[in-house]
């Protein structure tokens, strides 16, 4: 059995770095059949990033049955009808609810005599079950209708560090070993394609099966706590530059850890210096995003490691004391707040449409708008529902 199949994740927690996509797909499934929701979700992203896997994990976690179709099923209408009719119309035998998965929709042709895509759109409009569609590339013109009829969710590209740690995990379970350098090479070469990387290590490990050094011993990962300690408590050394290389975490997340914990280690001038460097690192991060110029990552890393370490007063007596570092909670707070403000958003949206302004402006002016919308007449005009009115009145 291919390792890629054998080690396919079963739980959301095993899908690293895809929290956003997970949240969206769960929301989609749960809100299915509510008035405004679309009936299909278009899951797109690079090959091997885990699109099909996410659909299966969703089914597993929510206890749904999956009914899978692929592009070749859309070649003949008879065949499609034969397969689909029972699936769409009947309750499934086991009384589980159902998800229809249409895998790799890229393969559907827009122009063959049968017209696979219009058939798919028809299916979406008439289904009683949530449809999940996976695709690599969705910006092709032929998918215009499909895009408007589905909710689009992008799966993030997976970085090589995440892939590497996944590979190490699999090797550990298989009791196989591949040296660090080869492993890094495979992870980098895969360019985010997890499936390809797993296939590679399966091949690679078959070749060198005589080497049997357990991976665990070789695994010198320092965790985030240790590396924060090196930065905050140690003297800046050249090795400090590499302190985050071995942390199994993306630099963005490391940045949040640093942000959270600077005040517990630095005060006054040290605090200001450290935050100034964090701020500079963020400026470079912004430039990377905007210009896609990845060499700037170098500066980001230097400021975050050596820079923050060197922010402390050199004459200060090095405390070797123990600090419990706190977990960053800002993202969680933002997420929780978004949940809280959902009502406000939906009200602002209706108000914005009615008064010809942008939704963002309506959100900004909400304190005043709120007062105006206590008027029942105004509520009726912009068609608020009961829940929204209740939110305004409390």
């Amino acid at each position, binding site marked *: 059995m291919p390792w890629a199949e054998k080690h396919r994740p079963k739980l959301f927690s095993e899908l690293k770095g895809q929290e956003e996509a997970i949240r969206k797909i769960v929301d989609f499934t749960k809100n299915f059949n509510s008035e405004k929701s679309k009936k299909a979700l278009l899951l797109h992203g690079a090959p091997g990033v885990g699109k099909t896997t996410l659909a299966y994990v969703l089914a597993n976690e929510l206890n749904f049955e999956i009914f899978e179709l692929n592009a070749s099923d859309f070649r003949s209408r008879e065949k499609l009808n034969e397969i689909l009719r029972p699936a769409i119309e009947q309750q499934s035998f086991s009384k589980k609810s159902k998800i229809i998965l249409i895998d790799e929709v890229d393969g559907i042709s827009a122009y063959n005599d049968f017209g696979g895509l219009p058939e798919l759109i028809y299916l979406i409009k008439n289904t009683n079950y949530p449809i999940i569609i996976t695709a690599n590339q969705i*910006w092709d013109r032929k998918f*215009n209708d499909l*895009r*408007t009829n589905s909710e689009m969710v992008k799966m993030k590209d997976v970085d090589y560090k995440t892939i590497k740690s996944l590979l190490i995990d699999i090797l550990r379970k298989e009791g196989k070993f591949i040296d660090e350098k080869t492993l890094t090479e495979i992870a980098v070469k895969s360019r985010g394609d997890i499936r390809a990387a797993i296939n590679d290590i399966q091949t690679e490990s078959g070749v060198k099966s005589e080497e049997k050094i357990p991976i665990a011993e070789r695994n010198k990962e320092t965790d985030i706590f240790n590396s924060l300690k090196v930065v905050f408590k140690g003297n800046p050394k050249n090795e400090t530059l590499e302190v985050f290389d071995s942390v199994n975490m993306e630099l963005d997340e490391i*940045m949040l850890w640093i*942000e959270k914990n600077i*005040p517990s280690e630095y*005060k*006054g*001038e040290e*605090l*200001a210096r*450290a*935050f*100034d460097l*964090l*701020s*500079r690192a*963020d*400026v470079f*991060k*912004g*430039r990377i*995003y905007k210009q896609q110029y990845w060499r700037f990552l170098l500066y980001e890393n230097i400021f975050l490691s050596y820079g923050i370490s060197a922010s402390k007063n050199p004459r200060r007596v090095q405390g070797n004391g123990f600090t419990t570092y706190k977990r960053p909670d*800002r993202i969680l*707070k*933002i997420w929780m*707040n978004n949940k809280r*403000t959902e009502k*406000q958003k939906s009200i602002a949206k209706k*108000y*914005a449409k*009615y*008064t*010809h*302004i*942008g*939704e*963002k*402006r309506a*959100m*900004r*002016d*909400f*304190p*005043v*708008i709120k*007062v*105006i919308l*206590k*008027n*029942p*007449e*105004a*509520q*009726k*005009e*912009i068609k608020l529902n009961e829940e929204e009115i209740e939110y305004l009145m409390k």
Partner: protein
Amino acid sequence: MAEGIWTEKYRPVSFLEVVGQEEIVKRVKALTNSMNIPHMLFAGPAGTGKSTLAFIVVRDLYGENWRENYLELNASDERGIQIVREKVKNFARTKSLGEVPFKVIFLDEADALTPEAQQALRRTMENYSSTCRFILSCNYSSKIIDPIQSRCAIFRFKLLEKKDVEKIINKIAENEKLNVKTEAINVLYEGCEGDCRKCINLLQATASVSPLISAELVSTILSSAKPKDIKIVLDYALAGEFESSREKLLDIMLKESISGQDVIKAIQKEIWALPVEPTIKVKLTEKTGEAEFRIVEGSDPFIQLQALLASFVLAGLGKE
């Protein structure tokens, strides 16, 4: 007929009803009368009548049938230029009905589009120029790429003057049977900063409390709508309580959904009321400007704001 929301109830529907912007109204009216408008760019601050004028043009051109011939989009709401193009395409595909040979697309807040997206928009404008006219609105015309500017007749909207605001308030007051004190008009005018929408909203919010509009009442409503807690954030920072300070800041930003740039604006104003030396005020203003600059360049405004708060901590220690 809209009754419950005054910004809609009192939105002018003909050129005659527009208050202020006399020059622009005159020119746009002449263009509309000729039944052949060019692409137009309405530039100017919020609440000065850009959407309203676009709407009047459309009503004037198509009369009863305006709905079929008018598409209104807001660039800051649409997720990406792809969606905008898609909607434009669907709308522009059919020819206009009636005697006017084109349809009108109003794209609000066009300066929210990135330069790349604007390039794509430019091509869209060209592709459909035989069947559609675009009216773009923006706050700053400098944020609109040159090729688009050169294809449009540009109209620059000014902030409403006091006499205009007064005229609008009086009209509403008469209709709604409000008693607006003269000082209240002053407070309304100052509070709305030349933004007509803001002014009417403020008036309606005040009127929902009492039909007697006094200066005090307007001030109360006005201050409840401002992020006044920024002062507390700065007080914490100056007292060296960095962590309380940033926590409070995050709290405010989330609860009131204000952006990093809005916070910077509030901080910049607040500096002058702080109990610190004049030299430090200047220094802090410089830091604030730098933070604003870095917010524009960087990726995470909250990190920049924390760095700024750390400077305030230093100022509190008398070290900066």
